[in-house]
């Protein structure tokens, strides 16, 4: 193993150098699966609802979903800790290189995984290549009957059919906060804003912030609780969401 590592030293360094900027810590131990984050995300990001038939066929457009499995059999059955699954904003994202149109690229400025809706031509390769299966595709033009469209958030593009979409870490809020901070001549403060899901979560299971700032709450949490895990880390995707299973 050591020799192998030696051989790949340059690559390893490259990956480690790809530090994230924004990150999230999710505490599965206190996540109650209440779906408030899902609803908040849908409301903030103009996500379409798809109706009974399509949602049952795996076409629901949730950007965040709460996974739960079962362990054991009755009466010793247990529900596994709820696992909110959203775009992990990988530092080395498998979805990015496979898009032929550069519609999903890595933001150098925010270190996020961008999805440029209008550049998307709908090959859906990125979604295939996403190990977390967190991308959703606009299978149809899911209409919002009037006057439901009044609720749409003007800060987020409304997507049409044939376009891939996914969690953006509420980049519109990031921009807004940065713009505000800049106008006031200061840096963005930790906790000044947060993502829609983290904002809604009644259990405070989701924390969002700067992972590159050791003083931020996310960094503190990650350090304090120590035993956090990243999903499918073995694939080398460098995810920016840390999970605490707890218990």
């Amino acid at each position, binding site marked *: 193993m050591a020799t192998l590592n030696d051989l790949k030293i340059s690559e390893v360094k490259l990956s480690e150098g790809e530090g994230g900027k924004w990150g999230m810590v999710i505490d599965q131990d206190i996540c109650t699966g209440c779906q408030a984050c899902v609803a908040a995300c849908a409301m903030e990001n103009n996500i379409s609802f798809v109706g009974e038939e399509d949602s049952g066929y795996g076409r629901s457009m949730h950007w965040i979903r709460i996974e739960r499995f079962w362990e054991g059999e009755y009466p010793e059955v247990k529900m596994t800790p709820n696992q909110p699954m959203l775009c992990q904003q990988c530092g080395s994202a498998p979805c990015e290189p*496979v898009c032929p149109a550069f519609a999903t690229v890595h933001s150098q400025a925010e270190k996020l995984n961008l999805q440029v809706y209008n550049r998307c031509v709908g090959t859906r390769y990125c979604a295939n290549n996403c190990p977390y299966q967190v991308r959703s595709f606009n299978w149809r033009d899911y209409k919002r009957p009037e006057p439901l469209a009044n609720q749409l958030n003007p800060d987020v593009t409304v997507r049409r059919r044939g376009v891939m979409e996914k969690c953006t870490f509420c980049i519109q809020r990031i921009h807004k906060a940065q713009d505000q901070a800049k106008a006031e001549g200061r840096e963005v403060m930790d906790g000044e804003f947060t993502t829609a899901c983290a904002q809604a979560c009644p259990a405070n299971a989701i924390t969002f912030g700067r992972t590159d700032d050791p003083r931020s709450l996310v960094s503190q949490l990650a350090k304090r609780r120590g035993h956090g895990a990243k999903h499918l880390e073995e694939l080398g995707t460098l995810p920016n969401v840390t999970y605490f299973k707890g218990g």
Partner: protein
Amino acid sequence: MTDHKNHAEHAEAHLREKHLMLDPLPRGRMNEMVMESMRHITWKFWVVFGILAAISAYGLFYSWGVMIAEGLGVAGVNRPVYWGIFLVNTVFWIGISHAGTFISAILRVFKAEFRRPFTRAAELMTTFGLVQAGFSIFMHMGRVWLSYWLMPYPNQRLLWPNLHSPLSWDLLAITTYILGSTMYLFLPLIPDMAMARDRSTGWRKTLYKILALGFRGTEGEWTHLRNAMNIFAFAIIPVMFSVHTIVSWDFAAATRPGWSSTIFGPYFVIGALHSGMGAVITVLAIIRGTMKHMKYFIRPEHFDAIGKLMLIISMTWAYFFFNDYMVQWYGGDKWTKQLLHFHEAGPMGWMWFAMLVCNVVIPWAILWNPKWRSTPWLVSTVGIIINVGMWFERYIIVPISLTINRMPFTWRMYQPGIEIPLGIGTLAFFALLYMAASKLIPLIPVWEVQEGQMAHELKKFGRETVVTVSELE
């Protein structure tokens, strides 16, 4: 003595009857036969043509229009099966297209003489198959009206296609291949167009005159043509290999269980040849059975020869399949294991077994026998079965493998929707194009056959009469 002589004459007659190359007709007569095969259009032709046109119009163009207007929701794709039958069909048609190049380029390079009468029939399949592949891949796109963004062209956004993406390579490779194979189809067609020009009147005369480009058959023209064809024959082989290898990389480059396999390149290439050969032999049997004078040009010897190739390719395919399976199985990754198990024992397990039966069991059981593989209906049936099997193979690789991923919470089966009319539409459109072409351009490259007949003769070695070929070039 006379007995012996009789016997020798009999053997010679038998050889001449068996081999097209030894059974020359006066060239004028042969030209006339080819012309007649084009001109001879029966009411049955129009009926089939009409039916195919209707199916294409509904299955391909109308359904596609509906899908563009409504979105991909009318198809069966979902999460996690983001790619469905469209990609299956794309791979399938690219596979079919490989036969033409294989026959007309590789066999040409190696001077396999049996290729002569059907190189064009095979090349037509290449071109028309690629057209269907192109349709299929464009259907698959969510916003096909923006597909020009995948083309490299200067633009005010200063953005060029992402050449990190296997799909971009695909686009380059398929473009190269479709252009190359069309040109390669056209070059040897020029002399035959000239021949047809000289023998037709009316609109056909105009058509052939345009297509013949003013070819007369002067020494210079022949030299340029021969040179070009040689370059093409050599150059298009690596292009052909690259195309299907790159198609395989669409899958192999992905971080998915069951897909990231290093053997996918050659496995796909051989799979393409497998289905391509099966398709060629099917088409040859149909041409032979339905078109006038074709029994003269396409003979059991050809079926025998292609049959042998099919057998070899089937064995190679089996080897690669096992190789892939073995390595995936041995790797022991839990998701891959789950996927392999799902392939065999899942609800679509029947397809996995059917694939093996169609691609291996049936071809091996029939093609080993020279008599059977010389029987056009039998061997073309095997060809169809192989194509069914290869379609299954792609179906297993695309939608069935996509069902299983590293997030079990999302696993879901795929039920095709509008893909079915669209798939049938491409098949009908392929047949439609082929039928139209069969009445517009000579399916038999007459000059190549004539050249071959000039080069072949019988020679006696002691008491045995054998076929010899002189190398003319």
